[in-house]
């Protein structure tokens, strides 16, 4: 299954440790104390005598570049030589043992940098002060006369110098500074610059290890199959029927619980190779009770969602003025209904985890977006005290929100408990991954807008009907029954502190945005961009419809409601200008804008329809994330977000028949191909003063910009995605 060479566990640990990269197994002495090593200046920084600086990264790396950005922030304050920087992951067990010195491990919500920039910079600054303090003490001079740059400490008056590596051990004994002053980003020389990623070379050489690559001596492999219908149950299986198949060791029932009854109830086969385990699993006679959702199909989803479009009861997420009065005095009303389907994360690397459970210890190696959540799952599943458990993070072959849920950790630990002392790797098949995901929630929306005689928008009602992620997974986060997250991107400012990062871009005089919660028996999850994605399609498509109904230019029509949002207006104007918006060149263009995950973004798409087929030629996308920690990485993230966002718009759809997901692999759930990919021009325009997210916001503007351009090209308004089945002939 992989081409990685078999290595012993000890070799693996030693190798990873000696290289100072990759899995940080053995980085710190393991055990309850997780004591600091001799070269540790503080929790964030280790400095070896050869001046190699190892920066500790708590968040996960899944290609988004957070690892490099966080290291840049620490290095900036540390004033170390960037060319001597390497990195390692502390384990969540070490974090727990050290009173959560590295704080949050969760990596989602475009929060990796913005959620930790303050304390990682403080960590770097504190280490610098301690290093300088140690040098000054050794020299018998005042620390205030010393400075550091590129890992060299200089005593100004005498010109004497030393290096970080020479004073690191003494620095660790210096008093820990309590209040550190951080540098102004305008003076940055390492952060804020397009530094090369710290992990690229090791990825190219195959040195870095993904979960699917892991092999340990004596390891057994498991394949798993969940009940094909969510809400169904495993009744029985005939293990005798496959016991003589080659390599088969055991057949086990494995059950996990997730949120409100959307867990798994399935069977795993353990064998000496994965293919043997999987082949035996496919041959295993299993009796399922499909339960109440046995006849569930797409028609049920549509019926359920449609029932909410005009329902009397709905949760409010944004309101202003008097929408009804505006509608009553309208010169013209515009009304449209939109729909977005369930969508799969479809990461390149299907879910997997490896566990070793003994009587008094549980260790897990896995790709995860939240090491601490994986650790909690390992402790719960093993039944051992959490101090006896740990999780070693690998890189992720795609996360997109899927790997925030540690269901596969529960599963592998449950299996490994049956094999004390033997490492077990659970590898989901691609089909299992595709059919048992945590899908992007499906919703519909009905929008109504009133225009006055001058073509000005006087009132807007946006009714969202559909699925709530929180109701299924974290019902305790509902507020009086409402899932405020369903309003991401259109939410009222000040409605909830955690939602202000997604507030509506426009100032409408009369407005109502509300949500009729309709939850089909589909397991929803956090999918890159989360609820901003569909809300952007709904609002930004409808703004385009209103502008055309009013006979106004869609750019001007939007800007008229953005006077109080100058940063949002600035990104919109930036894409309009770069793309040639308004020029008489015959090109069909479409706009979209959003404020999401704390950043202002906009996109302008340029499309053609040739023989009924959509050709997206060009996307110009602007991001104001306040502070750019690595402009090159932001550009790469923005470009990548269009691969993901446009794939979702073109092909992303999970459908149901007889209670079962119909898409089981990339041939039925495709991503866009290289030939379909437009040129993406990313404008990174940080305006300073804040840190906004980057990984997700531009996903949301991908689809509406293209849909609006498609209207400009053909006069056809597409109100439902994916486009794969849409008739685009003009």
């Amino acid at each position, binding site marked *: 299954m992989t081409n990685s060479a078999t290595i012993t566990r000890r070799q693996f640990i030693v190798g990873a440790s000696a290289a100072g990269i990759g899995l940080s197994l053995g980085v710190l002495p393991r055990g309850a104390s997780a004591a600091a090593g001799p070269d540790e200046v503080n929790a964030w920084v280790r400095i070896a005598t050869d001046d190699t600086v190892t920066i500790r990264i708590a968040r996960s790396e899944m290609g988004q570049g957070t690892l490099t950005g966080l290291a840049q922030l620490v290095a900036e304050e540390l004033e170390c030589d960037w060319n001597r920087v390497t990195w390692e992951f502390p384990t969540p067990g070490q974090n727990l043992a050290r009173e959560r010195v590295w704080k949050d491990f969760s990596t989602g919500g475009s929060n990796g940098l913005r959620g930790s920039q303050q304390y990682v910079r403080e960590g770097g600054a504190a280490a610098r002060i301690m290093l300088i303090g140690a040098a000054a003490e050794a020299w018998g001079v005042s620390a205030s006369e010393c400075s550091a740059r590129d890992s060299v400490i200089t005593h100004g008056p005498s010109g004497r110098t030393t290096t970080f590596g020479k004073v690191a051990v003494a620095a660790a004994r210096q008093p820990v500074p309590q209040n550190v002053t951080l540098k102004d980003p305008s003076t940055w020389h390492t952060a804020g610059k397009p530094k090369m990623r710290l992990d690229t070379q090791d990825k190219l050489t195959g040195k870095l290890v993904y979960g699917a690559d892991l092999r340990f001596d004596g390891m057994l492999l498991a394949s798993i199959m969940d009940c094909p219908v969510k809400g169904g149950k495993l009744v029985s299986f005939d293990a005798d029927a496959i016991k003589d198949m080659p390599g088969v060791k055991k057949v086990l029932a494995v059950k996990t619980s997730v949120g409100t009854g959307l867990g798994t109830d399935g069977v795993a086969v353990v064998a000496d190779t994965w293919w043997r385990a999987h082949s035996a699993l496919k041959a295993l006679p299993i009796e399922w009770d499909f339960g109440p959702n046995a006849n569930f199909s797409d028609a049920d989803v549509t019926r359920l969602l449609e029932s909410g479009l005009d329902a009397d009861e709905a949760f409010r997420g944004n309101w202003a003025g008097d929408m009804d009065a505006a509608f009553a005095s309208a010169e013209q009303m515009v009304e449209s209904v939109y729909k977005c389907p369930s969508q799969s994360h479809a990461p390149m690397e299907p879910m997997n985890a490896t566990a070793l459970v003994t009587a008094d210890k549980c260790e897990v190696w896995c790709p995860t977006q*939240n090491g601490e959540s994986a650790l909690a799952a390992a402790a719960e599943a093993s039944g051992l005290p959490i101090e006896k458990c740990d999780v070693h993070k690998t890189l992720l072959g795609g996360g997109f929100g899927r790997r925030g849920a540690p269901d596969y950790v529960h599963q592998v630990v449950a299996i490994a408990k049956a094999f004390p002392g033997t490492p077990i790797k659970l590898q989901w098949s691609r089909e299992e991954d595709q059919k048992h995901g945590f899908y992007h929630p499906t919703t519909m929306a009905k929008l109504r807008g009133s225009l006055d005689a001058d073509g000005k928008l006087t009132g807007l009602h946006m009714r969202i009907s559909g699925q709530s992620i929180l109701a299924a997974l974290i019902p305790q986060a509902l507020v009086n029954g409402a899932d405020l997250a369903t309003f991401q991107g259109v939410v009222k400012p000040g409605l909830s502190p955690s939602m*202000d990062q997604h507030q509506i871009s426009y100032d409408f005089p009369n407005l109502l945005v509300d949500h009729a919660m309709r939850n089909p028996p589909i397991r929803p999850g956090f999918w890159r961009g989360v609820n901003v994605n569909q809300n952007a399609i709904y609002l930004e498509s409808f703004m385009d419809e209103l502008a055309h109904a009013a006979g106004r230019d869609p750019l001007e029509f939007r800007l008229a409601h953005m006077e109080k949002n100058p940063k949002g207006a600035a990104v919109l104007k930036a894409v309009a200008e770069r793309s040639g918006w308004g020029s008489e060149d015959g090109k069909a263009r479409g706009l979209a804008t959003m404020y999401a995950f704390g950043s202002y973004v906009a996109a302008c798409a340029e499309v053609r329809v040739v023989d009924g087929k959509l050709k997206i030629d060009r996307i110009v996308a602007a991001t104001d994330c306040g502070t750019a920690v690595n402009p090159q990485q932001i550009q790469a993230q923005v470009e990548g977000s269009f691969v993901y966002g446009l794939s979702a718009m073109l092909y992303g759809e999970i459908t149901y028949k007889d209670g079962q997901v119909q898409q089981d692999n990339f041939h039925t759930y495709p991503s866009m191909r290289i030939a379909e990919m437009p040129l993406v021009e990313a404008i990174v325009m940080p305006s300073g003063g804040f840190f906004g997210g980057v990984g997700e916001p531009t996903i949301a503007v991908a689809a509406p910009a293209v849909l609006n351009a498609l209207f400009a090209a053909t006069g056809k308004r597409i109100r439902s995605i994916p486009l794969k089945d849409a008739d685009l002939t003009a």
Partner: protein
Amino acid sequence: MSPETPSGQIAPRSAVKRRQVLKGLAGGVAIFAWPTPGLALPEDATRAIQALFGDRPLQEGRVVVELPKLSENGYSVAMAIDVDSPMTENDHVSRIAVFAEENPLPDVVRFELGPRAGRASIKTRIRLGASQRIRAVAQMNDGSLWTSYAFTVVTLAACVVQG
């Protein structure tokens, strides 16, 4: 022992000074609290405790609250409470109430006990909306109130919940 239905009201939360709220509360001895400077008891939790026990002083001690240090998503968190009591006719725990300071409904669960319970020991699962302190208040048959708390980190799927 039967849990009563919790009641409560959602109100905007504004932290008040801890000493204003819990007069007589001796310096907090956490089972495993991480240092949290400026710790204050949210208004809702205060109101819920006062609604049940009035203004009587809470004494720190005799109660042990156990929670996992990390909870995967707060949906179903194992909790154990033990109160040091002989559980005799003359000296027993009559009531244990649990308050989740950061939950929208802080009044999580109440247990009524008597000497025939044998032990003042409870295990159950509760739902938590955020990383927070869980406080248990035990009322003895002489009316005295004893309390302690534990802290748990809810690791949550964070794409939307985090600020």
